[in-house]
């Protein structure tokens, strides 16, 4: 499956969705929709959040399963939180 680009390769700004289509009836919707906050994160961060939810929010369990130390996991989560927080 091809990867959804989230940043403009030319100016590095966030991309908007300008076209959506229904695969069943070929309906086409055009407009300018910003990507949801979570989708604006790099794929690696999105995978981390998915794993976090699947582990019921337990960083300890995640750390044990992924064979990474707990503080490394917590730092990763803190970095994602920082990215998601609105810039003042």
């Amino acid at each position: 499956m091809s990867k959804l680009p989230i940043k403009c390769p030319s100016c590095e700004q966030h991309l908007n969705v300008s076209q959506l289509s229904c695969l069943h009836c070929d309906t086409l919707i055009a407009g300018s929709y910003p990507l949801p906050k979570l989708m604006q994160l790099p794929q690696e961060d999105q995978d981390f959040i998915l794993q976090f939810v699947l582990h019921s929010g337990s960083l300890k369990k995640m750390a044990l399963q992924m064979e990474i130390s707990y503080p490394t996991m917590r730092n990763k989560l803190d970095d994602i939180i920082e990215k998601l927080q609105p810039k003042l």
Partner: protein
Amino acid sequence: MKTILFNPFKKYQENTLLIVGVLATFIGSFTAYSFYARFDGAIDLHFTSEINLWQPFIDNFINIASVFIVLFLLSKYQNKKTRAVDILNAVLISRIPYYLLPLLNINNTISGATEQMMTIAGDTININIEAIPMNALIIISLFALISFLALVWFIILLFNGYKIASNAKGNKQILFFALALILGEIITKAIILSIPY
């Protein structure tokens, strides 16, 4: 391999690191006693002619406690989520390279070479270069080189442990870390020199 040697804090859980760190401290202290070495400072090691079993143990306790307190306060100031166990593990594990150094004094090799050199260096007015024993010079130079490598390894381990424990980022952190380590050394030295044991 690189992770195990320089950044085990990234991969291993706190319990594993704590057990290894405590065991290494006991083994390292006993090795120091066996080979007449004193850890008389957070980044110091000296060989002595007389030693009691408890001395290297107390040396290490003071070294670990001083550096731990300074680094923990710095980490807490930077990141409130920092856990004490992670900083303690960084301090315990980072000292392992130092625990290997006393082994170099097998059969009093280093002490003997130092004594030989000191005899010549004692007469500062008439130093006879030809009288300097080559063997002693090579032994001391090699020991100095290995000690320097152990110091670098110690600093890398301690910094990586501190960085992971506190999620420290940026060049400013390196400066804070260096200042904390110097402060730890000063505190340790002051305690060790002021308490006779």
